[in-house]
């Protein structure tokens, strides 16, 4: 409990600092949302529109950065993330509600699955050094060295096409209407297969490797030898004694990966035209949409922090040594 409280202080500080940085960095970029909007439309919006847009976005008022900063905190405490510029006047929170589930479901599930499979293979590779699983390592290393987007594009070209089972873009069939019905969910799953595969392939390598190395380290710990000496079944030694302990360092890596679900998949979403947060962030950056950017950053920051908190809790649960008495 104390440990958690102590961590909480740390999290609060980190959150504050991160939010502050998130606030200032977009504002240090030259240019403004109106100009970006005009530029994006290359002549489709007339120059006259400029003034009306300034008025619209409330950028005509000259407020100091500091007072904007405090306003921002005020808004945050009211749970108000502001209004997006790109999709003016849609509240940022609405936009996030639209995009977050996609990202969380796609990337969340693949991260978890990737971790599970990767770690499982890593356990075997580390335990049975020199076996075929160990031989997989160079292949997975190569696969994880390929940039996400490139792998995605190649996958798209090779696997997706007019007559292919894999759709080439989007989160679901344009014809279907989101809802909890079979056809929508089926189509959503169908659309998520290719991006999920890409993420899996390129992320699994590092899990395998990390777990394998930990297994090799742990396998030579005395308590594993003792477990052998005790004549326990091999599986029990591998899983209960070696893997159980080797997993600990991976937990924080996994938590961090969970935290980066939101921020780390920009490219996958761009390549697969997936309607998630990553793509939204990319758009927001492109159009100087500070409120949206900030909102997404806030989500990312919070999710990283929450993931870390979860990791702490998981650590607490998994590693009794961190549980302090009294």
């Amino acid at each position, binding site marked *: 409990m104390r440990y958690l409280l102590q961590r909480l202080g740390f999290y609060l500080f980190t959150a504050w600092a991160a939010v502050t940085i998130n606030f200032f960095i977009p504002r240090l970029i030259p240019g403004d949302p109106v100009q970006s909007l005009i530029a994006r439309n290359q002549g489709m919006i007339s120059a006259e529109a400029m003034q009306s847009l300034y008025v619209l976005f409330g950028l005509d008022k000259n407020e100091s950065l500091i007072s904007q900063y405090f306003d921002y905190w005020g808004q945050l405490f009211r749970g108000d993330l502001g209004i997006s510029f790109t999709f003016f006047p849609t509240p940022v929170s609405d936009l996030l509600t639209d995009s977050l589930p996609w990202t969380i479901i796609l990337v969340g599930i693949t991260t978890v699955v990737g971790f599970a499979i990767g770690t499982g293979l890593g356990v075997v590779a580390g335990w049975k050094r020199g076996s075929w699983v160990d031989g997989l390592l160079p292949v997975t290393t190569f696969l994880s060295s390929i940039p996400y987007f490139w792998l995605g594009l190649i996958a798209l070209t090779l696997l997706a096409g007019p007559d292919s089972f894999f759709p080439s873009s989007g989160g679901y069939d344009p014809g279907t209407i989101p809802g909890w019905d079979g056809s929508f969910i089926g189509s959503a799953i169908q659309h998520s297969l290719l991006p999920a595969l890409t993420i899996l392939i390129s992320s699994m390598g590092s899990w395998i490797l990390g777990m394998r190395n930990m297994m090799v380290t742990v396998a030579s710990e005395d308590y594993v030898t003792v477990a052998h000496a005790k004549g326990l079944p091999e599986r029990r030694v591998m899983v209960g004694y070696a893997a159980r302990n080797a997993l600990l360092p991976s937990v924080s890596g996994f938590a961090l990966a969970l935290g980066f679900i939101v921020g780390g998949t920009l490219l996958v979403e761009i390549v697969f035209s997936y309607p998630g947060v990553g793509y939204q962030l990319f758009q927001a950056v492109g159009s100087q949409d500070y409120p949206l950017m900030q909102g997404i950053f806030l989500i990312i920051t919070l999710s990283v922090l929450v993931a870390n908190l979860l990791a702490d809790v998981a650590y607490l649960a*998994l590693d009794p040594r961190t549980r302090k008495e009294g």
Partner: protein
Amino acid sequence: MDPVLEIKGLDVDYGVGDEAVRAVRDVHLTLHRGEVLGLAGESGSGKSTLAYGLTRLLAPPGVIRGGEVVYHPADGEPYDVLRLTDRQLRDFRWAETSIVFQGAMNSLNPVHKVVTQLVDVIKAHEPRTTKAGRVARAKDLLKLVGIAADRLEAYPHQLSGGMRQRVMIAMALALEPRIVIMDEPTTALDVVMQRQILGQLVELRERLGFSVLFITHDLSLLVEFSDRIAIMYGGRIVEQAPAADLYRDALHPYSHGLLNSFPALRGPRRELAGIPGSPPDTRGMPSGCAFHPRCPKAFEPCPDRVPLLGTPGDPAREVACWLHPVAADTAP
């Protein structure tokens, strides 16, 4: 006394080929029923390697190059442990021979409760026992070594070093094995704790009647606690004798030197001679008797020929030294 374990010509290497380190060479040793056999020798002489080798627990790159480890079960024919299949070996382990490893800190899995680790071993070997029965047994075991039963639920880090060591001893006795191997079980503890644990062990031995192979480099401890002592040097057993005899009259110059390196707590203050020189390099073991470069009494055959372990006269003793020639031939 009937033997329970006979080690015959055991050779253990680290690595294979030219790079290999010959850590244990041609060791012959017999462990009798109910005795405490002390194994002493300086660091790196191959004590642990011997202990792990005979149970086949050496981590890579350790390999057993040859020899036999014959186990005499309570009923049935003796068999060679080195020829057991993995399955048989697993069954053999702990039920017949248990090991208390050097550092109790590392022998217990930090993430499992004491009870889990105790129950684990019972479950693996006696799958028919009930869960409650196993836990009750674990409780009894802890009591046996003087730890309150409520410590069952503790994690290793919540116990002191001494308690952990005792948990390991309790675990070693869980299946009432006939042999307990203890590799430096007390070096990390201070003397008060050390004595407590050893006292307990000796008492348990009397009650349960197992044999102990006790490894340490603290000869003074062995003299006090064991029935017989074997001294290792450079991967070989160089002397073997009843404890008191060895203390009174060590035949091998190395044993002599070892005994002379301990300051005595009582009695007159004597000058300590120690052993000159430094331990041999495992990769380039001296020819002949490995101790000859440091031996004050080395003479003509020592650098060339390896002395074999033999009985110098007293049938209870064995020594491998040219000063005490035995009937046996010499090895090249």
